[in-house]
């Protein structure tokens, strides 16, 4: 019997890139410390040894130049995979992302093809403070022209990375540091799982039901999915059956999967590590509001996200603003108050 091969998310991502590089010689990787270092978060580990410095290029700390160069190289027929360490650093090169990479296809009437994958690390939970802990996936999803992939586990990360590289459009691939399985940062172990050796692609725009349940839907993504799974396990002990939905990609957003689940459960909790205001959780709440003719809610929609403050440094402060497993449990209980009361009365 063949035993399952368990990979960390970092290993799964670098394996996907390696397999696409082997399959297609127009694929190359560039970014800061992605060569001999293997990427600060391990997403490009081993690639330099396999493919050499012509295809695995360490760049100067010049994000405008190398992200712009990715756009130029993609327009000329290559498929760059470009890493920019932390999502928080995109401020220095945003013009090349949202004014060029995201818009040139549209402004050319669809004639310019830009198959660029931008990879970056997101998320907090380890006291790295306000400039190294944000998620910001909603920011990129907000601006038209970039697909946004936010995996929660190794199996999905590999298939989604393969799909991202094969996609003819710009894709932002955002991995949470707290699920990469790094030897130097605590991580949620559910993120390391069985990953087939052969290449496979997971179509962008398909959410995944991680666990079925009838009482409430927890819509989540990235590391928060792993937290939601732990919360769901705890809730099960209290006879609350949560359905956990992993969005996997924000653009395209699998609206049908969200609606289908909430139609079934009648209760929605959104667990999100981005900022609360004007973002993902509001978008999903709006989706439900716009479909109240076919969605019957048993309780108001509830949102868990980072309140609108920068991510603080001190551990108790950070843990307060980033939703934790206990917060998800509490929120679920609150959503189910009606049901619990009825059960007690009976």
């Amino acid at each position, binding site marked *: 019997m063949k035993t399952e091969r368990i990979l960390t998310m970092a290993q799964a991502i670098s394996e996907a890139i390696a397999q696409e590089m082997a399959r297609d010689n127009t694929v190359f990787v560039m970014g800061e410390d992605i060569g001999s270092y293997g990427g600060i978060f391990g997403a490009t580990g081993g690639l330099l040894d396999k493919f050499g410095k012509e295809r695995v290029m360490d760049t100067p700390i010049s994000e405008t130049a190398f992200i712009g160069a990715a756009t130029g190289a993609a327009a*000329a027929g290559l498929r760059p995979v470009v890493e920019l360490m932390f999502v928080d650093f995109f401020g220095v090169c945003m013009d090349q992302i949202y004014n060029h990479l995201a818009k040139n296809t549209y402004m050319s009437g669809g004639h310019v093809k830009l198959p660029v994958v931008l990879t970056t690390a997101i998320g907090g939970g380890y006291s790295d403070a306000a400039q190294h802990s944000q998620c910001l996936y909603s920011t990129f999803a907000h601006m038209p022209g970039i697909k946004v992939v936010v995996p929660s586990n190794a199996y999905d990360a590999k298939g989604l990375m393969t799909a991202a590289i094969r996609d003819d459009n710009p894709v932002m691939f955002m991995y949470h540091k707290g699920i990469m399985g790094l030897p130097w940062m605590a991580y949620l172990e559910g993120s390391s799982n069985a990953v087939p050796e052969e290449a496979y692609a997971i179509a962008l725009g398909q959410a995944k039901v991680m666990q079925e349940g009838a009482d409430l839907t927890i819509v989540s993504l990235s590391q928060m999915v792993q937290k939601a799974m732990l919360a769901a396990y705890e809730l099960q002990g209290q006879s609350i059956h949560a359905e956990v939905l992993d969005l996997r990609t924000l653009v395209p957003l699998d609206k049908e999967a969200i609606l289908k689940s909430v139609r079934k459960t009648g209760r929605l909790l959104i667990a999100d590590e981005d900022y609360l205001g004007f973002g993902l959780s509001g978008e999903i709440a709006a989706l439900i509001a716009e479909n109240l003719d076919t969605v019957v809610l048993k309780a108001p929609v509830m949102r868990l996200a980072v309140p609108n403050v920068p991510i603080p440094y001190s551990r108790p402060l950070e843990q307060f603003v980033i939703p934790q497993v206990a917060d998800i449990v509490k929120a679920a209980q609150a959503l189910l108050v009606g049901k619990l009361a009825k059960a007690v009365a009976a």
Partner: protein
Amino acid sequence: MQIDKEKLLWMYEKMVEIRYYEETMAAVYMEGKLPPVIQKGLAFDIGGGPVPGEMHLAAGQEPVAVGVCAHLSDDDTVVGTHRPHHFAIAKGVPLDAMTAEMFGKVTGLGKGKGGHMHLFDNAHKFSCSGIVGASMPIACGAALAAKKMGENWVSIAFFGEGAANQGAFHESLNLAAVWKLPVVFVCEDNQWAISVPKAKATSVQWVTDRAAGYGIPGIRVADNDAVAVFEATAPAIARARRGDGPSLIEVRTDRYFGHFQGDPESYRPKDEVAHLRQRDPIGLMSKLLKQRSLLSADEEAALVSKAQQRVTRAFAFAADSAYPDAQDALADVFVQDHAFARALV
């Protein structure tokens, strides 16, 4: 340096075509933008008429475009600026589709989604950007692709002297130098960053003074003259094609119109442009061709007439073309995925 007759005539013809294009555009652009057909109280309506939006014209700057592009083939890449018409025409972008784009028509290069600052033509490897300094990183990418593909194609990043103070300039020059990319950075110094003169905004007298900081050649062209630009660019392009890396070229050129059409130009002396026009590069070139007996008066008249006809036909094509269906606004966010954008609504 010896320039053959064909190149000289090509540069002259293209300069004539560009100038007539810009002058025609200047006139057409004002249609529907002035009283009495606009809102009462306004002196000018930027959103009115057949060619709405901002309009940046390049009359006077023709030598930069033709002097550089005379060295290029369809395989070489050009990335232009927000003032892009002269580059596009010199690179061979079809006038019909380019003009239709500015009219917002479905027959335009981008089916009316880009407009005059955002012209994309894959066939001639031409693009441009409305963002100051943005041409340089993208041109580096095209050069990187050429290098990876083992081709000796070069790529040109045009930019204005104002863009030399952008981070994108410094990052791109360093990246291109350290990776030996086949790119030539060509600065059009027309002295004005909208209203701010070069001397008030730039720490060095010449942008090319900065080339040394990146260990690359800097070549300055003091005259707004196509032959001088052609000659100065030759070694830079040869160096790039050999694989020896980038160069920085700066051309002192002249902007005859305002920053944009409708610019009151209160910042520059009233007689400045009249003065500049006395050394007009098209007149200079005409004189040179006659001196060398390369062009007779009859041949010149025919050349000018043909160039003007091409421009006139392009404007007629654009005017006669249809607007896109409004619903087409939802397509082309992503390639091969038109249904996706519709599903977002």
